[in-house]
Each structure stands twice: as C-alpha cells, then as structure tokens.
C-alpha cells in the first residue's frame, strides 16, 4: 500500500492559527531515589478550533503534561524546562498576576473527577459566579444572566441555578463543571478524563454536550483520556504518550488505520470490540524505571520489532508525512513515501 498526500492540503492546515504550542516541556518529580521523569521533552501544537486527544496508560504523564501547560505542577514536581506558548505568550515566564489573568480567561481546566470537587455547601450559582467574578468585574445582574446563559448552553434547566451539588446527578454535575470551564470564553479548554465516572449512556450525552459547546464557541480543546473509543468519537488529532514521551501524533483516522509506532498499534489492537469477537492479544507490560530511562528508545523493552540501533539512539519525533509525527527508527521517509527499513517495504 502506498500512501501519497496532497501538499496543498497540508499547507491549508498550517495556515490555521496556533492556539497553544508546547516546546520541549520537561517535568520532573523529586523522590529520595532520584527524579522521576514524568514529561521528557513534550512538544505539540493545538490549532484553532481543534480537539487534540492525549492518550496513554496510567502513569505515562498525560495529566502532568496538562498541569505543566497550566503551570499547576505541585511539589515535589517541578517544571525543569520548556516553553508553553499560549497565543504566542510564554506562560512559563509570566509573573503571578499575569498568570492569574491568563488562567480561566484564555485557558481553563476540567480536572479529573471534577464533579466531585464542587463545593457541597455552595449553590451552583455561587460556584459559577465565583469563577466569573474572580476574573471579571461584572454587575450582579449581568453575572446572573451569564450563568443562566451558560446553563442553557450545556443543556441544564434554569432551576439548577439555585440548587446544591448533592441535588444533581453525576451527569448534571459534570455539565456544571463544563459550564464553569467555559464561563469566560477561553480559547482553550483542557478536560482530564471528563467522563470517566459516568455510565455509558450518560457519558455519551455529556460528551455530545461538550462537542456541541465547543463547536458553538469555536474553542480548542485538549481531551485527556484512555478510552480509545471515546477518543475516536470526539477528537481531531491524537497524541499518544508512553513513559513521559509523545511517541506518535497524527490525525485520528491515521492513528486508527495507519498507525506507525509499535506502541500505538498495541494500544489500538487491545481495544475490546463490541462489533466482533476476536482472540485476545496478550502482551507483557514491563516498563522501565522512570527514574533511569534506558539509553535509546523508551519502548525497547516491550517492542516486538526492536533493533540494535534502538538500544543506543533515542528516536526523535519526526514528521514523516504532513501532520503525522512518529518517534521510531523503523520508518524513514523516501521520496514522499514512508518506508519500513526492517524489510525495505513501503508502508
């Protein structure tokens, strides 16, 4: 199978405005036995109006990356180096006051388990109102109007305005969190596992609300998750993380149909299907100690195609075709085609 592509097509995507650009972000967690490298030089872009999925197994650094972008890494963690350019401004070099203005106005977060972080003794109106008034001075009437508008936007009835969190179901609480995140019209929302505790049907309803809101407001979004099914439904591009590194980043169709990195392939194959019964694919899952990454490729211990070269040189993340980047020695670009160097075949 030969893949060709239209360079013109790729150009047009490059013309889109970049909302967020992360360059070589490194976050370490200090432990008595040395630093755990949670983000090992993460680089990616988010374009305007785009949804990027950040996937990987627990402990691979998804949430840490998000916290790094928001400068919310807590000790013993620290951002070692990197740049986070939000609309061209480096978030990591702002002072506290400037940072406070950026947060929620330009970038907001729906943290993991957000619905359980609502204050149980505050009415919904006060919680959302708090978020608005901390960042903007508005008349009380205007705030009320805005809150009602937000509730309507996420598909909640107006009576929720006066209710307490315990009066709401999980799905409704999650919508309140979405309403808070979009309260000040940020250009980017980061949602960390935003449907993980919900039942399947409620999950679908909330996910569709999220997409709908995003389209209406034209924001960009980073969706952190491990459910590949949900990612397939919701995102435009996927970044696959493994042990603190992005190993592949590509449009969602490419990830599901033409993924290159052996880890991505493993991840795709291990999705249990509801459409066909197939034999289970079993793999051993031993990861290296994150304090001492081995020289060379981080996936070498689990990779079925590992070569001598992989144990010595770390594969860089390279763009092998427009928008499709992969960090693997197996592939080379030759005359606009991707070649598997182990057997010289064209992918």
């Amino acid at each position, binding site marked *: 199978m030969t893949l060709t592509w239209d360079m013109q097509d790729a150009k047009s995507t490059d013309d889109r405005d970049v909302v967020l650009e992360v360059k070589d972000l490194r976050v370490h967690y200090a432990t008595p036995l040395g630093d755990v490298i949670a983000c090992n030089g993460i680089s990616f872009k988010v374009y305007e109006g785009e949804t990027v999925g950040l996937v990987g197994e627990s402990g691979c650094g998804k949430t840490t990356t998000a916290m790094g972008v928001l400068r919310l890494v807590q000790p013993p963690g620290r951002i070692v180096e990197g740049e986070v350019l939000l609309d061209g401004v480096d978030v990591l070099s702002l002072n506290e006051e400037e940072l406070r203005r950026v947060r929620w106005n330009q970038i907001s977060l729906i943290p993991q388990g957000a619905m359980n972080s609502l204050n149980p003794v505050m009415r919904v109106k006060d919680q959302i109102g708090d978020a608005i008034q901390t960042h903007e001075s508005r008349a009380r009437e205007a705030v009320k109007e805005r809150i009602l508008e937000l509730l309507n936007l996420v598909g909640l009835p107006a009576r929720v305005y006066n209710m307490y969190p315990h009066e709401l*179901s999980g799905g409704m609480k999650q919508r309140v969190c979405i309403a808070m995140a979009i309260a000040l019209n940020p250009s980017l929302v980061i949602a960390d596992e935003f449907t993980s505790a919900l039942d399947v049907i409620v999950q679908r309803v909330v996910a569709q609300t999220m997409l709908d809101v995003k389209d209406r407001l034209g924001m960009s979004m980073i969706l952190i998750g491990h459910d590949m099914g949900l990612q397939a439904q919701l995102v435009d591009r996927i970044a696959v993380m493994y042990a603190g590194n992005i190993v592949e980043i590509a449009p969602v*169709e490419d990830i599901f149909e033409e993924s290159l990195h052996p880890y991505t392939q493993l991840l795709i194959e291990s999705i249990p299907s509801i459409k066909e*019964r197939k034999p*289970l694919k079993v793999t051993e899952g031993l*990861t290296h100690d994150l304090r001492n990454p081995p020289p060379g490729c981080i996936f070498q211990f689990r990779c079925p195609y590992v070569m001598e070269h992989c144990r010595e040189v770390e594969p860089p993340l390279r763009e092998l075709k427009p928008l499709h980047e992969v960090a693997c020695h197996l592939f080379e670009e030759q005359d606009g085609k991707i070649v598997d160097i182990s057997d010289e075949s064209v992918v």
Partner: protein
Amino acid sequence: MSEPLLEIRNTTKIFGGGFLQSSPQTIAVQDFDLTIAKEPATITTIAGESGSGKTTLANLILGFISLTSGQILYKGHDIATMDERQKHEYRREVQAVFQDPYAVYNPFYRVKHIFDLVIKHFKLAENKQEARELIEHALNVVGMRGEEVLEKYPHQLSGGQRQRMMVARAYMLRPRLIVADEPVSMVDASLRAMILDIMLRLRDEENISFLYITHDLSTSYQIGDKIHILYQGLVTEKGDTSKVIEHPHHPYVQELIDSIPVPDPNEKWDTTISLPSEEELRAHVESGCRFYPRCPHRMDHCLTKYPPLYRIDGLDHQAACYLYDEGVVGTDQELDVIEKEKVTSELAT
C-alpha cells in the same frame, strides 16, 4: 440434569426501610434467578450501570450480606443454613477477585503475605517447601515468577501485576467458582487482555467457572458465555452473550449498546440521545417497568405490572419487555417499528 454448582432462586435484597427507619426502601436486587452448571465451566456476566445491583449480587453470593428473600444454593445446600464443614468448603471453593488491586493489599507486608494467609487458614501445605511450590505453581499459571514478586511490597508492583496475583491467590485454592467484580476496570488497556486471557484459560483448563461482574459490555462480549443485564435491580435481558449483544431486544439494552463509543473515527455517533429530566427519572415507578421514564417505546400497559421475561429465540434469550408479549394489544406496531429500525441499521452497516 445433574445438580448445578450454584443456583440463585428468586432472590431479593432490600436495603433500609426497617422498623425504626424513616428512609425509603431501596430495592437493590429483585427476583433474581441464575444457574451455573458444574460442567462445563462457564463465564457468566452480570452487567449493568452503577446502582443496578450487580455488586450487591456479588456480596450476596459471597455471603457478606444476607438475603431479604429467596435462596442461594451451592451444590444443593442453602448458603444461609450451611454447617461449619460445608461453610469451610464453600469458602474455599468460591473465591473472589475485586475491582481495586491497590486496596486489597496491606502495604506493610510483602506480597507473599496474602499467599501465606490462605495456606495457613486452609492448611494447604505441610511445610514451607510445599507451600512455596504451591505458590510458585499458582503464579506460573498467571504468567509470573515467585522470585520476581514475592519478596516485594505492594507499591513496587503495577496494577496489572497485583491483579494477576489476586487471581493466582484465588487459583491456589482450587476453587470451582470465582466471583470477579470488575477485575479489569482499573487495569490499563494493553494489560487488560492478559487478565481476561487468564480467566479463559482457567475456565478451559482448570474447569473454574466465573461470575464476571462488570459495566463493560465490550470485554464481556469477548470472553463471556452467558449474560444477565440488570437495570435498577431487575434483569432486563439475558441469554447467550453474543446473541444478546449482537441482537439486543430490550429498549434499555439497545440504548446501552448504542452508546458504547465505537473505536472507529469513521463510525461516529450520528444521532443524539437525550435523557429525561432528573425528577422524571427519580420518580419511583411504583409498579410496572423501571425503564418506563426513559423508554422510547413505552406503552400505557407498561405501567400496570413489571414485565416478566419473554422468550426471544431459543430457550435462553429472554427480555423483560412487553414488546415481546404477543398477547399485548398494540405491540405489533411497536414490533414493526423495531424490526424496521433493525433492518435499516443492518443495511447501513
């Protein structure tokens, strides 16, 4: 037919609503029936959303809580009235694997401790050498080696490793039945297959039956033999796993399967579904079908009495929905609608 391994007869569990309690009753499980045969070993799935009563059912079978009414028979003996000897046997032959592989270990002990405890309690070994061999064999079954893990502390192992050790511990007792309550929901995707594969091997090679309790229909579709799908404590549909999941009949099960995100970007959700308001959902349906407030095919008839299980095809596949009662007036039209939908969806795929 020989005596079944486990038989659950018309079991109901109601929480609250006691003599001095003002809180309303919660019916966690109602009129539940289940039979697991001795031979051959099977994997039976109990599926449902949170609050559907699936964990209550596990707790009832394991004897952690007592029944409100009904009976649970193990090899013909009621577990509520077993004598000490029978109870001891039951405790050995029915094992459990729980959801959270982090919470079941005591962080102060090395992981070897969980094996030592059961060996001591059930007197499985005469001496240390024998005990060590038993543990080693059990670990090999789940693809691990004793020297790699036994001397470690729980926090030094991954979630997948811990869960496999729980299966090894259960296996060591040579059980006939393992109640597995969400055994893979906290394990990473690429390692999930390994645990499911161990379940299949234990079923086929060691003749161990499983009661697989889960909210995840995809994994039960991959490994399950029979399935019971619960909604608010009642069975909505049951039968062969592949039949139920490929051709769901109960409107709830249809909606449930339709809502599972398909891992294919070319097959995106093309319809939107909506849920009725909270009041409507919480309004207790006194009599009649619990799914009524959300059902797209609801009829007046549904409110009269909870629908019994109607046969769909064959003996096994049954759904608790009046749409499949041929005697009910008005069902024919409803059935037509469903048939048409099925045909169009099949055409679309």
